[in-house]
């Protein structure tokens, strides 16, 4: 009898303790998450807020989130500088080539996304030159699709007697003299990508002539590329290179009158996201990346002027909703998978001559800007 009881008690203890170890081993997430990102506050704050709710619901963990906003080159430089002892968990946004560089340097942690979510994302987009939107080695994955196009102020253009902007060459209209906002390529990787598109479209020498003409229309170079949309919205400039999530669409929501166009062959980013090697909150970081791939996460982008990373979703909303206003803002595009996307951007070529382009820009454009303006 007593032996039976002892046996039962023993069994009970065994079950309890094994259950406890199972629960303890359950990969509950850390309660903190730090991002380093060039993606706008507008997108990042919304995504983090949604993720907090999700983490609370799924794991009952209240996650303290924060993000440091820097340009892509700065983020990249900081991660290299930290060298495995990072002050952030996630690197999000910019050009995938930099993510490949980091992976090569062993500074990224492998992603642990489910096969199912991974398979929803196509390997690449665009022709004739396809652009990868997930890393075949599994170090980074695209989060959303975003073109690097042009933002313009229709009211101001009307006053200047200029038609709506549709192509790259529209920027060279002499009536726009003094009204183009521009940022130098060494200060902004998104501007760099747009200049690189022109270089690859027109060829080296012709492209620089084109850029000189653009500089003739430019009053001054702004400090950061993200000044461009706000100066256009304010009416300080009429048109400039811009990325929709980097403020452009937020200006619309804030009540400003601006429109956006993605000219043919414009650069498209998938805003790659990755966990930094040595991250203190690696499990939360993995969970955040997974969250962005789910419908709730993709909705964050779709409601803010960006496009889903997978053909499974298309931007739709009730009439007058922000999603529909975003569609109107970007000229009726609902998904980048609806029709073939034109791309010629060769990122290897771009990466190879990155410094050369910056240096040439400094010598041929910035240093001669006063002279070019007189032309």
């Amino acid at each position, binding site marked *: 009898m007593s032996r039976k009881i002892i046996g039962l008690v023993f069994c009970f203890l065994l079950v309890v303790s094994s259950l406890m170890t199972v629960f303890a081993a359950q990969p509950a997430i850390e309660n903190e998450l*730090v991002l380093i990102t060039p993606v706008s506050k507008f997108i990042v704050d919304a995504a983090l807020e949604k993720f907090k709710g999700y983490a609370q619901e799924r794991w009952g963990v209240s996650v303290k989130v924060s993000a440091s906003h820097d*340009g892509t080159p700065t983020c990249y*430089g900081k991660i290299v500088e930290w060298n495995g002892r990072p002050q952030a968990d996630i690197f999000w946004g910019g050009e995938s080539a930099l993510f490949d560089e980091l992976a090569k340097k062993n500074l990224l942690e492998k992603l642990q996304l489910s096969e199912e979510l991974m398979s929803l994302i196509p390997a690449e987009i665009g022709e004739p030159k396809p652009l990868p939107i997930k890393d075949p080695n599994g170090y980074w994955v695209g989060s959303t699709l975003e073109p690097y196009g042009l933002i313009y102020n229709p009211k101001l253009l009307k006053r200047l007697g200029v038609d709506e902007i549709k192509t790259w060459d529209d920027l060279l209209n002499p009536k726009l003299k003094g009204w183009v906002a521009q940022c130098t390529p060494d200060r902004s990787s998104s501007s760099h990508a747009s200049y690189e598109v022109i270089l690859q479209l027109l060829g080296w020498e012709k492209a620089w002539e084109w850029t000189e003409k653009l500089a003739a229309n430019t009053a001054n170079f702004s400090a950061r590329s993200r000044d461009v949309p*706000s100066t256009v919205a304010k*009416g*300080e400039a009429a048109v400039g290179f811009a990325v929709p999530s980097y*403020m452009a669409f937020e*200006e619309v929501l804030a009540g400003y*009158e601006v429109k956006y166009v993605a000219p043919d062959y414009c650069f498209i980013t998938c805003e790659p996201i990755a966990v930094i090697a040595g991250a203190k909150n690696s499990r939360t970081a993995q969970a955040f990346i997974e969250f962005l791939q789910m419908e709730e996460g993709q909705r964050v982008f779709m409601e803010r002027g960006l496009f889903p990373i997978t053909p499974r979703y298309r931007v739709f909303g009730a009439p007058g909703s922000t999603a529909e206003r975003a569609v109107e803002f970007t000229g009726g595009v609902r998904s980048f998978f609806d029709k073939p996307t034109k791309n010629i951007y060769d990122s290897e070529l771009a990466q190879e001559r990155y410094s050369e382009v910056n240096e040439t820009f400094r010598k041929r454009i910035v240093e001669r800007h006063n002279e070019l303006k007189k032309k």
Partner: protein
Amino acid sequence: MKASTARAGIDKRFSGNWENPILRWNGWRVLPIYIFLAVFVIVPIIKIALDAFTDTQGILTFKYVKSFFTDPFYLRALRNSMLLGLAVVVTTSILGFCSAYFLLRYEFAGKKLFSYLTIFPIIMPPLVGVMGFIFILGRAGTVNTILMDYFGFLRPLNFVYGWHGVLLVETLHLFPLITMNLLDSMGKIDASLEEAAESVGSVGLRKIKDITFPLSTPGYVTGALLVFMWAFADFATPLVVGVQDLLAAQAYLNIVQFVDRRLFQMGIVIGVFMISLSIIFLIIARRYLALKDYATLSYSPVEKKTLKGWGGFLVPFFFTVLLIMAFIPYLGVTLAAFGKAWAMTPFPVQYTLGYFTRIITETPKYIINTFMYCGLAVIICITVGVPIAWILTRTKMKSRGLLDALVTLILALPGTALGIAYIRAFNMPIFGISLTTLWIIMPLVLAVRRLPYTVRSTHSSLLVVHESLEEAARSVGASGWRVFYNITLPLIWKGILTGALFSFMTSIQESAATILLAIPGWETMTVGIFTFYTSGSMNESAALGFILIVVGGLSLYVINKLSGKKMGGFFG
């Protein structure tokens, strides 16, 4: 009995090698102060200087310095920065001298108000000022919209973009530095000197040239030095108005981009260059001041004349125009902080509190951090600054000269350079943690940057307290601390408080060093202003700027109440 032993004790102290009894215990008790200054001022400067001369392997090299001095772009930037600094000194000197002279020598309508408002422009937070100018004077600003909409102008006038814009913004921001320093030194000119000049026929402008100018040079030189370094080190204003070929702008751009190591190294070289320049200027200024120290302890101030006729109209007119110009950014920032989607109209069409709601509810950390760090910084300022002031006034320690020089050097050190130096010096882990990963570095750098104000204010209060009071207390047996607590402190607390408030007011405006050091979660309001601005949310920047201005204005009001007319002393 007790008194006699105390007396004997003092006699014993006197018999030592020291000239003053307090010296002996000061010698070792103030050691922590020296360690603090060594670690947080000297070490970073040495480290960044070493960095400029060593390559990645740590081998001595001159290649970075050489490539700086052989690159025509940097040489042009250097020349431009020098020219800009000089130009701002010239323009601020004219405005500063006129306003100080009018305020000191004449009575006219609205004088009290003008005298208070003249100091105001200096509390404009960085970046916010130039933004405010753009809102009013930009291509789509209030003035140009009015000109185009109602006066038929086809193209906007360019008020701010370019060199003239930098000069305009810096001049209207910095002229109070000259005014305050001149008010301080000019106010001490004895009336008898001017009377003497007049008696031998030196009147009017000649009297100003013969007497007033030479006698106000000590104050003027410090003011001019600070204006020069400030304009030289400011990177925000030129970048916003599209001027890039300046050293400070290049230093900032080169350091915040981490990709190109050559550019990063150039940023370090520029930082070292700035530090060297401030040291050189300081040495020149001190030489000059040492030769021409006209300070008099007792003086009878020159009698003020009441202005009549044209003068009575022109002087208030001068101040009105000057202050309207200087308050343009305040108007612009306020409109932008409350105006909804303000574009291409002279004034906002709709108003909203939305930007304030956003910065207060969504990102309260900016405000919380600012008050926490600046509060801590002030505590550090007092803990370190009051003993320094004590050493300078009450001891004859040999290192006093060095201490004084260090404190003045901090005043002239550009924040950008100090920020770079901190990044380089405190990135090395000690016991596995490097200081740059701990938030305490923020209040520390703020405290170091603003230490001189607390020191100077305490210093001038201590000068006024006669030592005989303290000696009397000691003669009846009070110990060093008790003397300080019972006698000195009650007499100087106002000075300490004013200095601390001034340190607080200026540290909430600090951005250069903190922007380079802040990592996620540590952002202060000034960093927030940059973050919002660079992510395109000018209105949220303006809202943060508005709060900073209000806090700054309140502090200035309290300081004014506490210290009377002695504001000039802070910057000198």
